[in-house]
């Protein structure tokens, strides 16, 4: 009989429901040898994999061995519980956002954005803010109810914050693309700390984005939201107007 997926206990699926197969690859700083292979198997076992298997390994350079492995993950996740969290967001269209802003806010929303630190990648923040936008969707500049300031790239956090204060921004928008050694985490944390030091954290929405930024990471760092690859301007705009409306409602 056709088999049923139990969403309360989901595990990886490769060939048969519940087989738990996960593909892995990594390098160990050990010489290429059978002992290296054994080390990889032991490590996978420590990660909790059953029947770990090395399907390929080779020397990268003396003392470094690369592995491709498979293993059976025995853990499972309760997917129903995650859905219960109402995790999936419905985005409004540009028109809906304009109407929502008119109705719930009745004023312009001021946003200031930049790619900060030594990061010269501006394509992401431009995609969000500039009229041209992204994937055929206008950037916030194109919305009637938004007033946008795009400071470009390589902008020190201090300059970004000063501008935000100067123009009375409702939201600061930060883009981070260079992430090696967690540079983005460093830059993003610095900004939050500055905003807090200025006593402005309550006054404005802080949102960040970039290919390796996630909503989870953003929240962990003290932002209100984080946006990753595939974000379109109206996703951001939806978030901003809803959040502002909620704040208006909360403060009466």
């Amino acid at each position: 009989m056709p088999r049923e997926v139990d969403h309360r206990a989901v595990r990886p699926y490769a060939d048969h429901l519940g087989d738990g197969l996960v593909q892995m690859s990594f390098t160990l700083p050990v010489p290429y040898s059978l002992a290296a292979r054994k080390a990889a198997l032991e490590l996978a076992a420590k990660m909790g994999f059953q029947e770990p298997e090395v399907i390929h390994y080779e020397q990268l350079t003396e003392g470094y061995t690369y592995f491709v492995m498979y293993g059976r993950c025995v853990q499972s996740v309760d997917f129903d519980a995650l859905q219960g969290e109402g995790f999936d967001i419905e985005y409004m269209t540009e028109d809906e956002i304009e109407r929502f802003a008119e109705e719930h806010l009745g004023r312009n929303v001021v946003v200031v954005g930049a790619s900060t630190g030594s990061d010269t990648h501006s394509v992401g923040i431009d995609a969000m803010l500039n009229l041209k936008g992204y994937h055929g969707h206008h950037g916030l500049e194109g919305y009637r109810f938004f007033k946008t300031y795009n400071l470009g790239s390589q902008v020190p956090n201090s300059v970004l914050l000063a501008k935000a204060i100067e123009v009375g921004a409702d939201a600061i928008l930060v883009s981070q693309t260079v992430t090696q050694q967690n540079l983005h985490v460093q830059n993003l944390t610095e900004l939050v700390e500055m905003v807090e030091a200025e006593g402005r954290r309550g006054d404005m929405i802080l949102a960040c984005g970039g290919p390796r930024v996630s909503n989870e990471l953003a929240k962990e760092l003290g932002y209100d939201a984080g946006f990753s690859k595939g974000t379109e301007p109206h996703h951001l705009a939806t978030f901003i107007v809803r959040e502002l409306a909620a704040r208006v409602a909360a403060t009466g």
Partner: protein
Amino acid sequence: MSKLDLDPGVVAACRQAATRIAEQVAEQIAGRTTLSVERSVTRLLGVDGANALEVPLPNVLVDHVHERGGLGRGIAYWLGNAMIQTTSSPQQLAEAVSAGELDLLALQEAEEPAIHERVTSECAARLREIAQRFDERRAMRERLGDGAAPLRYVLTATGDVYEDVVHARAVAEGGGDIVAVIRSTAQSLLDYVPYGPTTEGYGGTFATQANFRIMREAMDEWSEQHGRYVRLSSFCSGLCMSEIAAMGAWEGFDNMVNDALYGILYRDINIVRGLIDQRISRMINGYFGVVINTGEDNYLRTADAIEAAPSVTASQFINHQLALDSGVPDSQIGLGDAFEIDVPVKNGLLYEWAQAQLTRELFPDCPVKYMPPTRHMDGNLFRTHAADTLFNLVTIATGQGIQTIGVPTEGIFTPHIHDRVLGLQNVGYVFNAAHDLGEEIEFKRGGIIQTRAQQVLAGAHELLERIAQTGLFGAIEDATFGDVSRKQDEGRGIEGIVSTEPGYFNPFVELMREASYA
């Protein structure tokens, strides 16, 4: 227009040799039938089901006649007679035999012409019934739109038909045009086709009529929902080639891998048994417009791809002629070919290109089935994916008819659900990016590619002339294909060959001989 500057004289000589070889084969297998050929007659007549011991009724029926020494006349003779004597349908007769209530050979025998007429009209009715289903299917294919060549052919092989459905949906969504339900590794050597839906198999899912139906329904549903027709394929191979062709006919399978040589070389099936089964099997496929695929690609998995290239081409000529002789038109003959040159060979891509282009030019109207690199693939998933990219490039640049997609895990696993999708993405990317490359480029006159193609053709010609002397059976014994040697009087299933008697009669052969149903 030839890109390879082939000598038409050599090509013509190859075809002539192949014709002679095929004629010899026809003579060597004449005067014989097999248990499975006879069972496929019962299947086409609608016999289905299994007894309490799970023996399929076609086996019950054919064994019943065989044990009583009557199979030399053909099962159709006995069924025809029984239909006259009892007015039961073949299915009812099979059930009665199975229940031990009827002995077909104990019935009074009607006049031969009457028997022929009765059973032939029954056969014709069944063919019309199946043909009508195929008409509907063709209409559906036309309505939803069939993929453009090269068609993307993808295997599913979980062993559990319900898992296969899930995998097949992912294949369809990933752009697959043909889903091939690979068979469990144990099935080839069974001299019967299991009955009912199955959820346990290894390296594949048992080819049963119920499994065919489940897959067909699932893919028809997907096709309707998504507005693109997905074809189904399976394997007419092993000891039940012709029966599976019959089952596929009932269930509307669009394609079938069909090549006795594979079973002979790699499953140790007896040569004669294989070729008799193949003839009927291809006849059925041919009649219903099913595209068949031959298995020359396999040779390159056990013999060296550079050296064995002429044997592939020679085999294509022979297989092509054998298929034509079974009534399969060019448009349904998907000859086999593969991209299997060892990776470190310098200019390997040029040799592959030459071979692929050669096959296309020799059989311009055949939807050649091109197979991905597998032999030299290993657990370095990225290495395999890179080889598949060049394979995909050659496929589109040479305009193959059908392409079995390569997957990153080719060297290790029957593919995991996402591996096929990754493979299909690679295909989609390359087919699009290099869409008109074949049209754009010309090969240098006398360059590496042209020279290689001409050499392979010359080698094939030499081989064909030799085989025309030794006969195909001799050539197989000489390990001409895949470096594997098999003897004519050995191999599995030999006991299932039955000499026909003067009154032997297979109405389907008569009915289907005249080209296709359409």
